[in-house]
């Protein structure tokens, strides 16, 4: 129990100490959006023939005529009251836009991370158990391949192979095929919502839509995870306590899994947290290739049309998720390593 409370205390302190960073992100994105080229008022005027008066009117409506510090204050006040602004392209409040799109991104990222971990950890362990063997070289080759092929290329290749040539995968057009009716929305995660509704047909349809994009993203991050697993495993297999375990005649399984791998998993956990955050923000290419209705493609569209509010909302969302992920990794670390709770 006391261990749990120390972990909670640590998590709380970490959260508080990350608040200034969040604030910094807010101010930075606000300023960044103001120096980017493009005038939203011109963009949203009725057409190229719009007169100066009309543009001025739009400016006033958007608050763009006020001095920058005042705009910033108003922006901060809005965020404090949960108002992230309204997207000019979709006409919806940014908050509800993000809320409807975030689950799609999260589901994709979680699945990809799961696939990546399930592949990378065994690969890394296999490579570490026989360093410089054929297996080790094979793993190294797979990792190199995963890293050097950009996601949009590997995504298109997968579509070409599994959809066009083999016909195993459904057409890459978002989270549903047109014949599936969406489940009653509970979490926004289709796999969970379909399971809750006991609609297994819908579940497998959603899963089939998910496999290719998740695989594409997983391919890209297998390399860092597998390499870290290999290095950490090598270090812990060469450590004194593994030697002790061998000197006591423990079974090979126990030595590899309980002694070596549980110690080696700690750095993998850290990297997995970083990889997760990176994937969430960087999966815009995958979302575009697979027409996935996620937050990244939403933010990109908004950026291209000088639509400030969604981009700011997106950056703020990413920063918050980054903080959350770090917190989670911290808590997991505290559970996995008893030494961490001692400060």
């Amino acid at each position, binding site marked *: 129990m006391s261990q749990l409370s120390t972990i909670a205390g640590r998590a709380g302190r970490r959260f508080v100490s990350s608040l200034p960073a969040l604030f910094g992100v807010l101010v930075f994105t606000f300023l960044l959006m103001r120096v980017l080229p493009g005038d939203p008022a011109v963009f949203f005027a009725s057409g190229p023939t719009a007169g100066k008066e009309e543009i001025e009117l739009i400016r006033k409506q958007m608050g763009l005529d006020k001095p920058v510090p005042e705009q910033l204050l108003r922006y901060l006040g809005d965020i404090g009251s949960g108002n992230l602004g309204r997207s000019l392209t979709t006409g919806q409040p940014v908050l509800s836009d993000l809320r409807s799109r975030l689950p799609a991104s999260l589901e994709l990222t979680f699945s990809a991370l799961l696939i990546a971990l399930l592949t990378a950890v065994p690969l890394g362990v296999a490579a570490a158990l026989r360093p410089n063997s054929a297996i080790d070289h094979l793993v190294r080759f797979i990792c190199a391949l995963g890293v050097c092929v950009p996601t949009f290329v590997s995504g298109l290749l997968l579509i070409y192979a599994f959809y066009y040539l083999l016909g195993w995968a459904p057409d890459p057009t978002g989270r549903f095929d047109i014949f599936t009716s969406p489940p009653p929305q509970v979490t926004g995660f289709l796999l969970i919502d379909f399971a809750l509704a006991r609609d297994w047909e819908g579940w497998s349809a959603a899963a089939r839509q998910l496999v290719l994009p998740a695989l594409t993203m997983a391919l890209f991050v297998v390399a860092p995870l597998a390499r870290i697993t290999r290095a950490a495993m090598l270090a812990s297999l*060469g450590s*004194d306590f593994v030697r*002790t375990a061998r000197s006591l*005649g*423990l079974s*090979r399984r126990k030595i590899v899994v309980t002694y070596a791998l549980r*110690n080696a998993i700690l750095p993998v956990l850290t990297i997995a947290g970083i990889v997760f955050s990176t994937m969430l923000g960087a999966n815009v290419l995958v979302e575009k290739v697979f027409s996935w209705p996620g937050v990244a493609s939403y933010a990109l569209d908004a950026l291209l049309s000088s639509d400030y509010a969604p981009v700011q909302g997106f950056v703020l969302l990413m920063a918050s998720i980054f903080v959350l992920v770090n917190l989670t990794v911290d808590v997991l670390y505290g559970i996995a390593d*008893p*030494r961490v709770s001692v400060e």
Partner: protein
Amino acid sequence: MRDTASPLLAIDDLHVAFSTRRGIVEAVRGVSLAVARGETLGIVGESGSGKSVTAFAITRLLDAAGRITAGTIRFRGEDITRASSKQLRSLHGAAISMIFQNPRGALNPIRSVGDQIADAITAHEPVSRQEARARALDLLKAVLIREPDKRLDAYPHELSGGMCQRVMIAMAIACEPALLIADEPTTGLDVTTQKTVMDLVARITAERGMAMILITHDLGLASRYCQRAIVMEQGRVVEEAPPHELFSRPRHPYTKRLVAASPTATSTIADLAPPAEGGDAPAIRPASAPAGERRRQPGTPMLLEVQHLVKRYDGLTAVDDVSFAIRAGESLGLVGESGSGKSTISRMVCRLIDCSAGEILFDGQAIGSLPARDFHRSTQRKDIQIVFQDPTDSLNPRFNAFDCIAHPLRRLLAMKDGAALTERVRECAGRAGLPFDLLERFPHQLSGGQKARVGIARAIACRPRLLILDEPTAALDVSVQAVILQLLDRLRREDDLALLFVSHDLNVVRMMCERTVVLQNGKVVEQGESQALFTAPRTAYARTLLEAVLHLGGPVAHPAGEMTPAAT
């Protein structure tokens, strides 16, 4: 030799080679030895003698680069030299087990000690988890751990080094092996802990009729706990005899050198003198009297005065109201066990860390209030220099020996590169006994003793008046330690250098220091003339410390001595 029964373990002409980047290195070259049931055999030697490699070859725990190239290892009459990994697994723990040097590192940091002991039991016996846990508790009691039921769920980082070693012993004896191999089991532990741990191991092996191979560099340890000892040098056995015979009448020149270099209760710095080795160090001026007997005029002013020094780390008082003083040219020893605050005091005196309260007067000037961060700019920086414990880690790996020694000259005396600097560096190297042709080498190309000389040459480069030595020989072999101690003593006499000597080795402090301060839990327990303190300690703690020191030729305390060796 007792050959009444067939020996438990017999090694015949063992060769072990390591493949390294510089080719094949033979670490063990033809070792033959035998261990009878219930016997304790000591293997002594310095680093690189192949004693640990021999142990790891017996248990086949050599790392991947090491290979047995020739010879046989027989255990209970059976050849195990090429045993399969399955055979080895059933031997490990159940028939042969090991205790290692670094107890904290030898335990899994993220598994509770109870679980680890239970793992050792369930590896060989089909018992339930509860039963294994109950037996783990019994084992913790057997190794005399206080509050064993609480410790069962503790993690290694929550236990002291001595406690970790007890847990390691509990794991090693869990399945009642016939042979226990202890590889430097007490190196790095405090003297008092060392004694209790070794007494425990000796008692357990005697009670359970286990044979033991005790691998150590400490002749005192071997002579106290072994019935027979072998001396190894460069992968070969050079001498074998009962320890008191071996150490009182050594026959082989290497054993003679080793025995001479080991400090005893009565030896002086001059006694440690090994025969001059290849003109490496300049001839040592014979010291007519041990350090303690030299007297200083009472009028000599104090060079360093430490008054009511306190250091607190949030909530924990590491140093609590410590006062002492050193005259110019005097040597003062700080002794105590780990956690006594001796290293913290030395760091505060040389102004590497700040003190929480108290005053440090150097040459009458208060230096304690200067922030440690800014002390490098003070004029006293060059007067107070330090020699660190780890000769490797305290040298910049990207600096060659010349740059290491020149660094303080460039920084503190603002000397420019040129003939004068080269001359000064060569002078320091010469005084520290470092041959000039080694000056171009980088730390990893130097031996431990040579690195220690670089560290000393660097410390004396600015001609300091106070030299702080933080366990300067703890990482060195005894023969190297002897030479380094003589070097330090000579430098002190030549330069009228004051020494603050921090060490856990009481014999070394007795020889090196005129006065000694005994610390316990951050407080001064006793201080006075070394001679008086070491012959007649006034406090119980100082007496305990002194009694824990193992002397060569001291009484053999092995309880198994009373037993018939063949009893199992």
